[in-house]
């Protein structure tokens, strides 16, 4: 055990020393990845990338603003259904454009508007009540998605969604191959990470973190905390909508499951497992939570139990998540 810790510490030192090189190597690895793996694993990776965006978007709410949303799937599902409704080729849909230049802003605007509406009600509460009211709104949307079948396709959802495309007229490109979609998803992960990083390091982000630490004090300092929380809620919702759009464009299918509370629970688990308030942690968490069942399901049918045990182990032994574990080791070593 001790030797394991020592080895871990050495690893950590190496990681810190060669950080830029490692990041570069990671980037190159990510770029050549589609050429070296089987298409099954590529699909899995795309899924993980999309969930990484979803998890990061919740981190802005939960990790940086202290808003424990238990209904974040609402925004994933809204993005998913909106793009499916716009672009799918069956008779449910408008069969509009699949062009990202139009569909991306449309999805983000739509989801942000609904987030504004939900936030207006939900943000009047806090703590556990906020958790429950966000759950309530997400479940309302979930039950609408099942009942309003003329628009949403009922419990089957909407199928036949077109892959995204970009460009104009003859100069357009469709991300219909798995490889191209991988690069698109990767680009969106980087873009989302960069944008969210800019936000949390801006005055807005500092204010949000102030609200997380002590909302009353921020109020006393003259901040209108309601609207700051609203900003976080809407921005987080919009990024979740982006993830939902990508998810549906990749799987070509929007279903009520996208809106189900277990999806909200899962993304929250990704965050806690990875480490909240870090943006990187949620990416790791998304990978672990999505891949874990596949890793163990080839050995046992009881993978759900194992997953539950994994979560329990995290709470008991690494409550700060994967990143917290790494950091703690780093501090032990330097201190």
């Amino acid at each position, binding site marked *: 055990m001790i030797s394991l810790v020592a080895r871990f510490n050495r690893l950590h030192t190496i990681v810190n020393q060669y950080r830029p090189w490692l990041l570069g190597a990671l980037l190159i690895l990510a770029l050549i990845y589609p050429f070296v793996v089987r298409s099954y694993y590529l699909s899995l990776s795309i899924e993980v990338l999309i969930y990484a965006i979803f998890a990061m978007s919740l981190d802005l709410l*939960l990790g940086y603003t202290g808003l*424990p949303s238990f209904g974040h799937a609402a925004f994933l599902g809204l993005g998913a259904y909106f793009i499916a409704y716009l672009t799918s080729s069956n008779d449910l849909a408008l069969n509009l454009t699949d062009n990202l230049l139009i569909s991306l802003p449309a999805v983000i605007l739509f989801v942000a508007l609904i987030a504004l509406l939900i936030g207006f*009600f939900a943000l*009047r*509460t*806090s*703590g*556990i*009540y906020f*958790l*429950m*009211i966000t*759950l*309530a*709104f997400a*479940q*309302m949307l*979930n*039950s*609408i998605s*099942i*009942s309003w079948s003329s628009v949403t396709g009922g419990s089957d959802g909407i199928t036949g969604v077109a892959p995204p495309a970009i460009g104009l007229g003859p100069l357009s490109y469709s991300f219909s191959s798995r490889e191209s979609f991988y690069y698109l998803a990767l680009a969106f992960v980087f873009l989302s990470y960069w944008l969210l990083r800019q936000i949390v390091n801006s005055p807005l982000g500092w204010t949000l973190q102030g609200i997380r630490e002590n909302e009353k004090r921020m109020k006393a300092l003259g901040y209108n905390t309601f609207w700051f929380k609203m900003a976080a809620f809407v921005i987080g919702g919009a990024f979740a909508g982006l993830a939902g759009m990508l998810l549906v464009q990749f799987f070509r299918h929007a279903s009520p499951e996208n809106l189900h*509370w*277990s999806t909200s*629970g899962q993304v*929250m*688990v990704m965050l*806690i*497992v990875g480490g*909240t308030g870090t943006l990187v942690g949620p990416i790791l968490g998304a990978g672990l939570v999505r891949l874990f069942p596949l890793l163990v399901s080839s050995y046992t*049918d*009881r993978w*759900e*139990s194992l*997953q*539950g*045990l*994994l*979560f*329990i182990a*995290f*709470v*008991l032994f690494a*409550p700060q998540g994967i990143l917290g574990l790494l950091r703690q080791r780093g501090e032990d070593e330097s201190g």
Partner: protein
Amino acid sequence: MENFIIQFLNGLVSGMLLFIMAAGLSLIFGQMNVINLSHGAFYLLGGYVGLAMVRQFDNFWLALLIAPIFVALLGLLVERFLLRRMYGSQRHLEQVLLTFGLALVASDLVQWYWGAYVVSVPPPPLLAGQVPIFGIQFPIYRLSLLVFGLLLAGALWLLLARTRLGAIVRAGVSDAELVGGLGINIQLVFAGVFAVGTALAALAGVVGAPIRTLYPGLDFEILILTLVVVVVGGLGTLKGAFWGAMLIGMADTFGKALVPQFSLFLIFAVMAIVLLIRPSGLFGLEGLEA
């Protein structure tokens, strides 16, 4: 009119079942400040253990006794070895993850052991059949459940409001640390409350099985409904759990009868409206902020 009476009675029955669940959840939250997402799993486990008893000994009453005790012992283990490490409102997320993990494990094991299909449980022979009431025929079992729920509510109220033990528990809801400072073994009280809370969930599972049947996934369904009940009623009070359960039981039953497709929507809409008007629920304790 007849239909209305039937639905009304069904609403009461459904509410009574939810009350037994919600009382446990609310007690645990109010006293220990713990959000227990495995409460639904304890319900299902209680139901299945009860079923095993009925199959083995052909005795519903034995099931009613043994299942809650069995599940309460399990609850004690969970409290002692897992939950005790993470009390406090700063650690709600950890509690959520822990109890969610427990719920996953329990739900998977239950499905493994009892199979992934719907099992219906017959009511005890003594309470089978129907009686005429208000000009309609209504199952005796459901009526007895109504009476049982009322008696249980009364008993819980007496226990909490009129006994020394109840006073300790109520004091613990407002300030557990202070109660500990008065020389009362608060750890013991916590363990007891958690055991009673899980026993109530198991009890609901046993008495609910003849009405709602048993199947994997019911644990999460019932958990969600119960969470809605406690939030609507207000966390931490018995009164809140009771009236919240009645409201949601009615909304659920009438929703299913009148607008079957939108019944879930109706429940969550009720919850959203209540929270908007009274952010801490109908009878929520002021200042009990999580």
